[in-house]
């Protein structure tokens, strides 16, 4: 019986590992979607990607403490790379997302970039975004080139923190292979349904 128990445990481990692996989002194309923004304009993601050298999609959850901690970092990153042809959009895929709510949040957080409302979490599902602060970098063709977190620290930035998103943007702008093409987002689960 003990042997059966051990075998059952092992099979459970193997089965879950096979069934639950997440495919890489890198190289996946962004879906053809038009999302309303807090700047009052509709945004066709494919067109947005074409109009910039690279586009950052920053999935957001306003109730997540990690989001608040990352506010300053995404603001700084947006300001630093705007002149280099990189556009940043925050994406609200959560239930209850609306232009009114997101406008208030964008102002409160000092976002100088629009928040796009993703009703029903269609974009989040298409890209496999599950967590707040999960970020995607799109190239001009609309393909995902980087997927993951802003950096390696969840709250305060330590001296040894790795700025994954910044490194990815620098590498892409320099035409170099990415040091890290995928990393882990450290925020809360997005409530999309």
């Amino acid at each position, binding site marked *: 019986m003990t042997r059966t128990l051990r075998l*059952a445990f092992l099979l459970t481990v193997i089965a879950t*590992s096979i069934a*639950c692996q997440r495919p890489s989002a890198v190289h996946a194309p962004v879906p053809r979607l038009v999302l309303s923004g807090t700047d009052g304009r509709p945004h066709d993601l494919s067109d947005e990607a074409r109009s910039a050298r690279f586009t950052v999609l920053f999935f957001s959850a306003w109730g997540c403490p990690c989001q608040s901690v990352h506010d300053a970092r995404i603001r700084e990153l947006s300001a630093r790379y705007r002149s280099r042809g990189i556009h940043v959009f925050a994406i609200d895929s959560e239930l209850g997302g609306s232009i009114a709510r997101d406008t208030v949040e964008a102002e409160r957080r000092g976002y100088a970039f629009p928040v796009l409302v993703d009703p029903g979490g269609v974009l989040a599902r298409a890209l496999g975004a599950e967590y707040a602060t999960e970020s995607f970098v799109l190239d001009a063709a609309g393909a995902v080139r980087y997927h993951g977190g802003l950096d390696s620290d969840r709250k305060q930035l330590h001296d040894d923190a790795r700025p994954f998103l910044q490194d990815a943007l620098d590498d892409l702008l320099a035409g170099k292979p990415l040091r890290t093409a995928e990393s*882990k987002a450290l925020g*809360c*689960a997005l409530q*999309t349904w």
Partner: protein
Amino acid sequence: MGLVPPSTPPPAGRSPGGTRRLVLLAGVAFALVSAIAKDASAQACCAGSGALTPGRLALHEDALVGLQGHAATVFGLYDEGANYARTPHYSEYDFEEDLFGAVRVFRRGQVALLLPLVETRRASYPPGQTAATQVGGGIGDVNLSLRYDFLVAGQSHIVPGIAALVGLTAPTGRSPNEASLPLSANATGTGAWQGNFGLALEQSFGPWLLNATELFAWRAPYFAPARAGTPSSTSIDETLAPQWVTLLGASYAFRNEAAVALSASYTFEGDAIINGATSPGSRKAVAVVSVSGAYPLSDRCRLQGSYFLNPPLSGFGLNQTATTGLTFTFIWSWS
């Protein structure tokens, strides 16, 4: 993990009046904290789960190690008929230090290992007889467990987070039947291999996290040789009945990711089979209520503490001692 009470139920004790006051105070503190923190907004699934289950990896964590200290005292007893009584001629102090670690094995899975060290002091002072005090301890039963979160709390406002739990407990401790001391103070485990299977449901509502967990434990038959100095006929083959544990909990997470939690559990197992025959009246049950809190010292380390109590009321236990105690946990994590 918990120490198995001696096979002969001990009488003895101390007044539970102090523990009632403590529970009341904890409840009032919990209510006050909840009422005051109106702008708390930490997402419950990250911080709240740490208050309810300290050894569990948060969403963003890849690994953790922790050390938990546990101290408890016996103040009463639930008999075979679930009647509660104080134990004026018996005292018991239980201590446990658990070293544990968890690693993320898949995106949503985690494997944890728990290594317990158990110490017990038991004293019996029957009226008119010589008091007997015993101290014992040793390594407890080592547990390996796997948790897989199919859905995380908060991902859907309709469907709660769903997790499967599987575990294996090895009888690395000493069972009460193998304990050499008459009061079994050096018993540190159940004596049986144990397989655990469970399902956990949890849902977050803003800073609140509600959790319901059901666990089933199957225990393998085991053989306990006769104690030294006793006839070989006193050796036993024992099969403990399957055990069911129901756990309900609620936690509240603050903006700084500190959290407080209130939980209750009920554990029940049927009659054991000893030497091939059911041993009537050996079934066990016990209810536990606890108040706990978790505080993040930094991104990488956190403290957790709890106060727990078996309610000193009839109907809340069967063939078990009633205890109260504290736990204190330090956790270091990597993400």
